[in-house]
């Protein structure tokens, strides 16, 4: 042991260490050409038409473009289409395309690619179809695409801008399938701002800027998506400088980012929310409106926001129209305040006395804690529940007899949607029962009519008036409690400029982002 520390050895070790620092340091310098490293969980479904989560969208959005896209403020912006017109009857949408766009393989982009893409979405039953509804698509010339709808759909543009509606090359049957040798990335052929150059499933994806991008080459030299599944480890990676940007940071981890130098917390309001819902069909407690109302009076939403989101969420009404939908949100609606005595009265009137049951929740986000706090609030309001917190995969699995759709009383998580209409159409109309979205089996003829009316109303003011009526229905007889709309947190290195984290962070626009040394 003693010989290990002879002066000569110390000098040698010191020299080696210095060499390592120089070599390692130059490695860091080499990256300063402007490669943004983004930490996220690993993507699994790569097919543009079928993918769903943030890392999958992030990879796809970097490689491909949309016809039109959802901007961070939930409005629709131009992308491969420069302009669009809607016919007076609302049934024909005509898009004018850019004529200066090429795919990564050098071939020119034209209307045929758009037609192929949208027909393929229908063919593979992409989730985008639930937003577009039925349509026919045709291309009168190389720079024009026409969609014809069988019925008015005021949210059709959100369907055209759906996350899965990325424009692929005409005739591409295997988009995003890894090939062999020189052809490894041949099927990752988009028009987008970045070109995929390396992909190690579960580890990382490396992309370089597309110098021929129609919107001008991105400010960044490249992107590197580093796949880290554990959210705490993602924060560690940001703090240690291993990555420059992370999103979906758990609220409890934001303090660590705030306390550290050189990194900052990002916060974006979203329409993401938990729904606490009662089944309203025959034989379930929620069939009686008084029971639904009792649960609302038994719930202190302000306290839930305070305890679970440290007061940083937004308390809305007990309906899916979130405050982030700006003028669609009606702040004059007076919701039930916490009133345990009133809840007890209502349950008494309904002939139940004390509600005994089980509250089911998925083991995701803060929902286990949410269930624990609800149990306490409700205990003071004649509602006694046991809690069953089930792993997310089991909770949403139909082979489990107590899955999210079957149980009488449950919590489900609803991700951000750019428009309230999408939520209403999925979860609160009769057709939603068959698709597994209308868990409460809430069928209300008046609401049904309003939802149809809203879908045919393109005037925002008229639509806001319809949504105000919708809020009123939920207030009076809705089967759901929405305690808050959760904000989205992220973390970013202070070297990064021009980055905006949208409510769906997989759609972060990297084209305008730059990074300094």
């Amino acid at each position, binding site marked *: 042991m003693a010989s290990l520390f002879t002066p000569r050895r110390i000098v040698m070790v010191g020299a080696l260490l210095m060499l390592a620092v120089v070599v390692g340091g130059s490695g860091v310098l080499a990256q300063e050409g402007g490669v943004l490293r983004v930490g996220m969980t690993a993507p699994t479904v790569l097919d543009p038409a079928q993918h769903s989560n943030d890392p999958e969208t992030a990879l796809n959005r970097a490689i491909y473009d949309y016809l039109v896209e959802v901007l961070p403020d939930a409005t629709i912006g131009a992308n491969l289409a420069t302009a669009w017109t809607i016919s007076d009857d609302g049934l024909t949408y005509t898009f004018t395309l850019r004529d200066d766009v090429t795919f990564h393989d050098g071939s020119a982009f034209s209307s045929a690619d758009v037609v192929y893409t949208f027909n393929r979405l229908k063919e593979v039953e992409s989730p985008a179809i639930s937003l577009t509804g039925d349509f026919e698509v045709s291309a009168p010339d190389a720079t024009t695409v026409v969609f014809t709808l069988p019925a008015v759909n005021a949210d059709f543009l959100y369907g055209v801008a759906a996350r899965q509606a990325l424009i692929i090359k005409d005739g591409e049957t295997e988009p995003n399938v890894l090939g062999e040798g020189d052809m490894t990335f041949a099927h990752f052929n988009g028009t987008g701002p970045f070109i995929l150059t390396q992909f190690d499933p579960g580890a990382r994806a490396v992309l370089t800027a597309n110098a021929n991008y129609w919107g001008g080459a991105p400010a960044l030299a490249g992107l590197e998506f580093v796949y880290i599944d554990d959210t705490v480890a993602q924060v560690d990676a940001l703090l240690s400088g291993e990555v420059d940007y992370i999103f979906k940071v*758990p609220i409890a*981890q934001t303090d660590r980012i705030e306390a550290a130098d050189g990194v900052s917390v990002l916060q974006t309001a979203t329409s993401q929310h938990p729904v606490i819902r009662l089944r309203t069909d025959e034989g379930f407690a929620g069939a009686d409106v008084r029971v639904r109302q009792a649960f609302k009076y038994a719930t202190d939403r302000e306290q839930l926001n305070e305890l679970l989101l440290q007061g940083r969420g937004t308390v809305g009404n007990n309906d899916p129209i979130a405050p982030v939908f700006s003028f669609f949100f009606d702040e004059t609606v007076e919701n039930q305040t916490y009133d345990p005595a009133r809840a007890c009265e209502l349950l008494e009137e309904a002939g139940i006395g004390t509600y005994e049951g089980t509250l089911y929740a998925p083991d995701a986000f803060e929902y286990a804690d949410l269930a*624990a*706090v609800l149990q*306490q609030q409700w205990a003071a309001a004649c509602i006694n529940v046991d*809690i*069953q*917190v089930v792993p997310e995969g089991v909770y949403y699995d139909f082979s489990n007899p107590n899955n999210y759709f079957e149980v009488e009383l449950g919590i489900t998580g609803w991700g951000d949607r750019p428009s309230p209409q999408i939520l209403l159409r999925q979860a609160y109309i009769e057709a939603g029962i068959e698709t597994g979205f209308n868990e409460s089996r809430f069928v209300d003829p008046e609401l049904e009519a309003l939802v149809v009316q809203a879908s045919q109303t393109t005037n925002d003011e008229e639509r806001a008036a319809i949504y105000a009526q919708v809020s009123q229905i939920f207030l009076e007889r809705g089967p759901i409690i929405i305690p808050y709309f959760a904000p989205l947190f992220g973390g970013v290195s202070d070297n990064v400029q021009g980055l905006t984290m949208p409510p769906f962070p997989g759609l972060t626009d990297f084209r305008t982002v730059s990074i300094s040394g």
Partner: protein
Amino acid sequence: MVLQNTLSLLRQLTRRPQSLIGMVIVGVFILLAVFGSEIAPYRFDELIRGAARTPPSELYLFGTDTLGRDVFSRVLWGARDIIVLPTITTVLSVIFGTAIGLLIGYYGGVLDDVISRIMDSLLAIPALILALVMLGTIGPSPVGIIIVIVLLYTPIVARVVRSAALNVRSTGYIEAAKLRGESTLYILFREILPGVLPALIVEAALRFSYAIFLTASLGFLGLGVQPPSPDWGRMVNEARNSYAQTPWALWFPSAAIALLIIGVNLLSDGLRRIFRYEGGLG
């Protein structure tokens, strides 16, 4: 007779300092399991208004968690589950394992071959993964945990008992009992069982410590006792995400699990020395 043996066993244990420490630790935790809920200043699920994320103080010895629940009270309440569940699973596995082990050890032959192979195949699957799959299917509940752990540990106990039974089967006193015309049950329980008892006691102690660990692990993975019950494993998992804000909510349940397992292991180590038994399976 039994009382005398137990007393002499305890006396032997106190002679070795490590075993004495183990006994004290386990003893304290058993007391907590019985009286913990009485001593605790708050209920385990009580949300103290305006006290969320308070560091340890005179008022809240171990601080409060992100929802404002007293961590000290939760640890105390949680002692019951972490002791009771593994105790039940250990007792059941030992009963079933002993019965099976004695039978196949004594009779041998085809019966032994068939049952041993079935048990071997059960043992070949990693315990935690099997537990995850089974609890994922039947849904997490205390009864589910008991069923799963008993199913996992019975073959291990049976194997130990079987090999011990094989050793005594061919000894003279068994032959003598057979010649006396004793019934099989008598031979199994009065002649063979005492011979394998030392191995069994050590094995039971070992199973107990593994059962604690497995119960806590399942709790950590969200497949244990349901919230808001203060399962130590679940508490560690819940506190893990908010470690930056409420580190104490992570420290104390973790320390409690570690201390209890150390105590049980010291104790089972002491037992092993007394019986000079060297067997045991991971």
